[in-house]
């Protein structure tokens, strides 16, 4: 007997599975999957401005820094300002989906590709952002390599204000509506990577970025 049959057989025996009922239970399972019942959720503000304020507040709690600009076209200048403030060089790896913005005018040298170890700054967008916890949702795709938000020490994300949703449940609803099936990797990112393994003392910058900077685009 295969291990699969052995394990499932013992589970069935434990549950006293009646083969006559199996198809009815399978239907119940499909009903549960179609219903997508939600559990209790914390109350969130209804209007977008308040939701954005909540997102910014919670992002700060997660040790992200936040900037706001009016239009998408203002984003490169905001990114350059941030990097200059840290005395960093104005070079970055960027999601190919964002390469069309005029980065050069802001003095930035960007390369649209997946990140490698030596990249110090990575610029990404996001699929949406979650106000409840100050979280970015990034979906992998050829134009959105997952490494850009992971390997560089500094991660900068552009967050269109209209893409801020109250909770994770809303993010899934958006993904189903716009993408159909899930992409290979959905990464929820809440601030820089961290560890508390040594004496439960939180240190930022474990294996991923040391800092996460969010540029909220109000007009998008």
């Amino acid at each position: 007997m295969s291990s699969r049959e052995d394990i499932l057989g013992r589970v069935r025996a434990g549950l006293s599975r009646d083969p006559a009922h199996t198809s009815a239970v399978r239907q119940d399972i499909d009903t549960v999957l179609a219903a997508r019942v939600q559990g209790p959720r914390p109350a969130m503000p209804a209007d977008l401005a308040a939701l954005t304020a909540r997102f910014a507040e919670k992002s700060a709690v997660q040790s992200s820094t936040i900037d706001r600009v009016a239009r998408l076209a203002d984003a490169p200048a905001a990114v350059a300002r941030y990097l200059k403030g840290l005395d960093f060089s104005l070079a970055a790896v960027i999601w190919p989906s964002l390469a069309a913005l005029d980065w050069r005018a802001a003095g930035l040298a960007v390369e649209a590709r997946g990140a490698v170890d030596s990249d110090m700054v990575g610029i990404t967008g996001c699929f949406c952002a979650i106000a409840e916890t100050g979280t970015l949702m990034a979906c992998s795709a050829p134009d959105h390599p997952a490494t850009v938000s992971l390997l560089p020490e500094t991660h900068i994300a552009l967050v269109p204000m209209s893409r801020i949703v109250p909770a994770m449940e809303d993010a899934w609803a958006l993904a189903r509506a716009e993408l159909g099936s899930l992409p290979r990797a959905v990464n929820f990112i809440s601030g820089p990577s961290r560890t508390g393994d040594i004496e439960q003392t939180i240190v930022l910058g474990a294996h991923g970025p040391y800092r996460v900077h969010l540029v909220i685009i109000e007009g998008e």
Partner: protein
Amino acid sequence: MESRSRHFKANAAASLANPVLQANLKTAKGKFVDKRAIAIKEIDDFEGSREAARNIRNRVLENLDLWLEKFEENATARGATVMWAKDGDEICRHVAEIGKRHGVQKAAKSKSMLSEEANLNMALTAAGIRPIETDLGEYILQINNNEAPSHIIAPVVHKSLDEVADLFHQVHKTPRKTEIPALTREAREVLREHFLTADMGISGGNFLIAETGSVALVTNEGNGRMVTTLPRVHVVITGIEKVVPTLEDLSLLMRLLPRSATGQSISNYVSVLTGVKTPAERDGPEHLYFILVDNGRADVVGTEFQDMLRCIRCGACMNHCPVYQTIGGHAYGWVYPGPMGSVLTPLYTGLENAIDLPQAATLCNQCGVVCPVMIPLPELLRKLREKQVEKHLRPWFERIALKIWAGVAASPPLYALGTWLGVRYLKWLAGGRDRIPVLGVAPGWTLGRDFPAPEGKTFREQYAERQGKR
């Protein structure tokens, strides 16, 4: 991992007598407890959320066979290979075979308690694959002669900064660093190289999502993302009980898991991974394997212990346990310490191999109160004690003592006489103090604590006297 739970009493005594461990446990004590208390206040209806979480987990367990088939169907449809393992040896065989098939020389591992159950690292090394632990805590343990973790979330909670500083200095042959950020950066640099060169990533799975055939992976360090993004092959090793129905269910559970574990509103990285990379994608594994593991779980389904399978491995029960706080995790002798371990170890490794674990509890119910999926841990511990008695696993003197007690307690005159003698003996033993440091008839009881001395008369005597005065 070979169980040392049989030697719990000796292990616990050694932990109590170890001044370094005691100092380290004191440093850790209360940190997780305080953070959790603050974090759960952010949830308007925390108790309602716990109930919802319990119901989600129960829904799957009640029809686990069919939910597993649903998960398997959806994962396979996205290009993953689903394998099954009855025990630790079969996990090791599967991973070694996968490694061989894809020419793997190095495997980067995110934390997986199941790989501890299976002793996977040893098997990989024997198969010519170099395993690298990448969770900072697990890495520290690996370079310290493959020491066992003492906590499921914070594996090196028993170690001090000084001990880690010495270890890095010796193993990395770098100048000794004493700042935690500097040590963390040193580990980052060593491990980054391994992430980039590993052919295989191995992870556990916090949840399996039936709806989409995905695994949800929760980490703070980002190592979970690294090992599932960079290597060509990704192997997920997870227990059969980890299935949840929908992404909505995951969303609810993610409000509870990080808050209960580390007191965070959310962990830094939550990854939901589905299938293999498309040809156009620049990163992600080309091959994805799920190894669904029994190792004792299937036989718990449908028993009076099924509630334990709801466990989402947050560690809140151990963080809040007065016994765990006092002796640390190693004394429990197997992979899972604290109250959850005192239930899981006898269930998965045999009641007779962990005879003292169900006793290693005061039944104060702190664990039951904080458990995010409402597992009645004290009740399960009590049931395990009953099983021990049913199977005649308790020592002969305890069985005789209980028989005598049962006889005395059932006879009012004998009970009155016994307690009359007892309180007088104890009062004499106390010699005017309110505590008895050495209990003559049962000296074992007072090895780690004093026995409170009685006032001098039994309740019955005092009651009779007061009735007489009326």
